[in-house]
């Protein structure tokens, strides 16, 4: 039995380590092989990018060597897949290798596509890459006053990030004692300030207390870089001195090139996490087309279900449980307070007041993550 995992991000790494533990006897007896293919030899802790933008985390804290995170039972190669031949149960990689499989897991993730909005790439700062987070850090350091416009495009990774950004901006300028010189305006695509009703209900009084202006039903149409104006599909516009954008995302280009899913999102069964029409192909994390948050947390909980089911298929010939839509997201409510949102397909989140202990738990989790991807948490 050959199990092939494509993608060495949060989902793929947790899945591979979890499977290595569950199938250790079978791997030792060479009844099962477990291969992980990744596009990079480094693993990034992506939530750290927002901290980098505010000078609260250094860039080197974001990375570990992928090989150092993996069980010795995993056959790991830095060799990205270029062609999926699902009808022949094999993939072709950049190096020219062919990998056959009995079970395939696709966890290739997502990417930002700022080019989809005219002017966005030239006119807006973001925090979704190392270079972008460092540039935003410099822009914030140099900012002495004026209007900061925050825009949110669809779809995007980590739906909590836009409100966290607002809270961090407020505290950042408050600590620099120039908050009164900074006007923060938040723009959101739907008719309330967050897509989760209970998060919106919790955040609105916080926004009001922090004197954050907000405009809802604002879907970015274009950025007029020369005149520093951002315009919406709905016909409104905002002048800015500094524009910070949550850019639109797509699935990875290899998914689109292989026509596995429109937008790079693979059609996936919301309970089994198998690709539609392919019972031996599982899909994890951002790569799915599921109406579930594109977060490391979702990828983590999905990976645990898929690992348990693949191990069960190997051992007893059948999967044993469904994914229930579970997601757990920390919400930083400033530089020293946080809360969390936990929900699944059946239960909406019930937000608690932000507290300092929850913030310190989040700070601790930023380090505990490395144990989490090793499959130890």
């Amino acid at each position, binding site marked *: 039995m050959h199990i092939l995992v494509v993608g060495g991000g949060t989902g793929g790494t947790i899945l591979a380590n979890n499977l290595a533990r569950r199938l250790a006897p079978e791997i030792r007896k060479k009844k099962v092989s477990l291969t992980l293919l990744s596009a990079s030899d480094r693993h990034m802790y992506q939530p750290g990018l927002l901290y980098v933008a505010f000078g609260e985390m250094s860039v080197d804290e974001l990375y570990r060597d992928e090989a150092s995170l993996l069980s010795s039972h995993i056959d790991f190669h830095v060799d990205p897949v270029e062609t999926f031949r699902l009808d022949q149960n094999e993939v072709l990689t950049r190096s020219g290798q062919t990998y056959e499989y009995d079970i395939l897991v696709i966890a290739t993730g997502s990417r930002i596509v700022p080019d989809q909005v005219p002017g966005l790439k030239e006119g807006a700062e973001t925090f979704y890459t190392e270079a972008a987070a460092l540039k935003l850090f410099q822009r914030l350091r140099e900012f002495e006053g004026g209007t900061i416009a925050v825009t949110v495009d669809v779809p995007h990774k980590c739906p909590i990030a836009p409100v966290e950004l607002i809270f961090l901006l407020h505290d950042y300028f408050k600590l620099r004692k120039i908050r009164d010189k900074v006007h923060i305006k938040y723009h959101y695509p739907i008719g309330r300030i967050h897509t*989760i009703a209970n998060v919106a209900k919790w955040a609105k009084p916080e926004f009001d207390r922090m004197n954050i202006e907000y405009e809802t039903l604002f879907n970015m149409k274009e950025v007029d870089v020369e005149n520093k104006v951002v315009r919406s599909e709905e016909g409104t516009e905002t002048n800015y001195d500094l524009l910070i954008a949550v850019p639109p995302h797509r699935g990875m280009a290899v998914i689109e090139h292989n026509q596995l899913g429109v937008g790079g999102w693979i059609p996936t069964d919301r309970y089994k996490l198998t690709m539609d029409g392919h019972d031996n192909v599982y899909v994890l994390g951002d790569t799915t087309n599921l109406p579930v948050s594109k977060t490391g947390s979702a990828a983590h909980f999905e990976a645990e279900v898929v690992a348990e089911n693949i191990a069960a298929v190997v051992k007893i010939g059948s999967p044993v449980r469904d994914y229930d839509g579970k997601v757990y997201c920390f919400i930083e409510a400033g530089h020293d307070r946080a809360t969390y949102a936990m929900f699944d397909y059946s239960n909406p989140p019930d937000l608690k007041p932000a507290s300092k202990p929850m913030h310190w738990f989040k700070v601790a989790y930023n380090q505990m993550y490395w144990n989490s991807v090793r499959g130890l948490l």
Partner: protein
Amino acid sequence: MAESMKVDARDTYCPGPLMELITYMKQADVGDTLELLSTDEGSAADVPEWVEKVGHELVRNEQIDGVWHITVRKAK
């Protein structure tokens, strides 16, 4: 008339039905129709509000057995 593409956002809280619809509307061609399935009571009001504000066309908005079926045609 071609069948509408279904966007199944039942029993989900994040990113939520309207965000899901916007995602698929961006991928659709002008003239395409999309049918959003939602169990969120708020969808019956907030989807039409967004459709009107952007300038798309609301084709259908009705609740059947606890599920809102909201069909939208992309107009621009």
